[in-house]
């Protein structure tokens, strides 16, 4: 087997991102194919890396310094899995991105490659400060993309994202500084083994800072306030990227802070409570939305809260569920955002109440239904397994009241999605332009993934069996 360096996952998008302006000088048309090709290459590499990581964790040392001093990439099975998800989602979204018309296209493609690179880096790195750097790369690319539409809405969303994002990353940096001041190391595994040497008070402050800082990216309540407006103001493909790439990278970073670095077992209930609050507010406010993209954004908050809850419950089952949920949410939410993009384009409005009959075209309607049913956690779609495992994990730990609250919030989720479906499939709407290939191909691809792994989830569960090592502080 060819040894694949995980660093390629970061290097390739970076290289092509800065090659794009050059290519753009010659031909603008070829750009989109270059981007999709790059991400496809990246996906293949991610697959190879992942296959290798399944056997044993990969440590890729960068720059010649040995850890704990030098920077190291560490790819465990779960990290490889998340990286694969991110690249796969990125690939499918980039197909939708091909129909982007608004100039400056070079910058759009560049930033999306940088976003991919940052997200990959956040997942792969084994160094705390490097994690911060990649977080910032992701954030900067995201700020740019969020304002890409150059209208008031986009700028406002981006402004909120910038303010909260930079406060969040300041917190991350504070946390890193505190840890470094005590342990004089930045390598995650090294920190984890020497955690006892830390002063408990400093430890609490450091943990809180890191938790909060990554919480901004992972859409935790009450740090997720930027989400709705940023998602709403960004171009549709970008919203899909946020939901399925940067949010996943953020929550994986959070999971590593919780489990790999701090090996936090006594106070996990706190994470559960934050998770359930996130679900609760996300779903309830989503119900009160009138615009489709805002509704999806709040729903995304709710789903991320569910993942957080699963992480917080902390049993093998629940964490497996949480990782499964990351996968299913990445797929389903990207699908819904792309569908929403088509709907907004076809109806010329964001108001859900004016989208009568938009789903009656089966090319849109069937993927839309599959996506929504998966989000609602219906078998045999992938959304079911994550939700069920998280719930059962919660029950086995005795979190009855919290789960009852969670289920109540999920019922609200059902209510607003059903309200949307009702409008989308209502008769008597106008005739809408039929979707282009760049719209329905990604939709169908996502739908096929959702159904295939929903019917046959075994491969995913085999990957997730590595959760046990992850929970005990392994890679």
């Amino acid at each position, binding site marked *: 087997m060819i040894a694949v360096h995980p660093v390629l996952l970061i290097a390739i998008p970076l290289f092509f991102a800065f090659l794009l302006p050059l290519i753009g000088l010659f031909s603008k048309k070829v750009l989109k194919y270059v981007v999709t090709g790059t991400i496809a290459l990246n996906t293949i590499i991610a697959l190879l890396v992942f296959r290798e990581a399944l056997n044993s964790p990969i440590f890729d040392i960068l720059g010649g310094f040995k850890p704990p001093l030098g920077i190291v990439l560490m790819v465990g099975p779960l990290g490889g899995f998340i990286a694969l998800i991110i690249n796969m989602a990125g690939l499918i979204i980039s197909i939708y991105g091909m129909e982007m018309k608004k100039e400056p296209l070079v910058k759009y493609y560049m930033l999306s490659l940088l976003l991919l690179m940052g997200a990959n880096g956040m997942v792969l790195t084994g160094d705390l400060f490097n994690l911060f750097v990649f977080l*910032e790369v992701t954030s900067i690319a995201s700020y740019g993309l969020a304002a890409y539409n150059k209208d008031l809405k986009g700028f406002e969303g981006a402004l909120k994202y*910038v303010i909260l994002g930079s406060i969040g*990353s300041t917190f991350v940096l504070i946390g890193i500084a505190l840890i470094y001041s005590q342990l004089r190391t930045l390598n995650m595994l090294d920190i984890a083994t020497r955690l006892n040497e830390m002063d408990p008070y400093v430890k609490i402050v450091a943990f809180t800072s890191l938790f909060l800082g990554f919480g901004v990216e992972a859409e935790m309540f009450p740090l997720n306030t930027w989400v709705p407006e940023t998602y709403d103001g960004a171009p549709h493909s970008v919203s899909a990227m946020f939901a399925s790439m940067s949010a996943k990278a953020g929550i994986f970073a959070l999971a590593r802070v919780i489990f790999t670095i701090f090996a936090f077992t006594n106070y996990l209930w706190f994470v559960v409570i934050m998770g359930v609050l996130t679900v609760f507010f996300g779903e309830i406010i989503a119900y009160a939305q009138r615009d489709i993209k805002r509704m999806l954004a709040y729903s995304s908050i709710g789903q991320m809260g569910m993942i957080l809850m699963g992480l917080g419950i902390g049993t093998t089952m629940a964490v497996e569920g949480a990782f499964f949920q990351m996968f299913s949410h990445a797929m389903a939410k990207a699908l819904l955002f792309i569908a929403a993009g088509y709907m907004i384009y076809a109806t010329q409005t964001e108001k859900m109440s004016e989208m009568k009959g938009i789903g009656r075209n089966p090319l849109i309607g069937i993927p839309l239904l599959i996506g929504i049913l998966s989000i609602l956690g219906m078998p045999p779609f992938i959304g079911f397994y994550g939700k069920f495992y998280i719930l059962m994990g919660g029950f086995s730990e005795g979190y009855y009241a919290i789960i009852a609250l969670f289920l109540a919030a999920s019922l609200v989720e059902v209510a607003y999605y059903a309200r949307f479906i009702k409008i989308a499939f209502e008769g008597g709407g106008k005739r809408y332009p039929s979707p282009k290939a760049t719209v329905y191909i990604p939709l169908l691809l996502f739908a096929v993934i959702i159904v295939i792994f929903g019917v046959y989830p075994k491969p995913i569960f085999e990957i997730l069996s590595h959760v046990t090592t992850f929970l005990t502080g392994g890679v």
Partner: protein
Amino acid sequence: MIPYYYLASVALIVIGIYIVIAKKNLIKIIIGLDMMDTGVNLLLISIGYVKGGTAPIENGNYTLYVDPIPQALVLTAIVIGVSVMALALSIVIGLYKNTGSLELDEIRRERK
């Protein structure tokens, strides 16, 4: 005893957050963000500080020198901070072009 430069960095961070929360002018808000950044950078630098140490250049003459890693970190952090500021300012320019104002409440009123 907590060294005073730690206090200074905490003060900078707190002032920065206060500016972000309280001031209505977008430029000021961004200055607030920058102050927070500076505060954290100061924190990082002071962590690496060793009393009486020199610059971490290996030439055999000195045995006592400051920890080089925080300095590397701060350099990176400054670069990142600058690029975030640049982006934030360009967003503010965009807002100004769209609304003709830099005051947050006026921009929000414009929206409605």
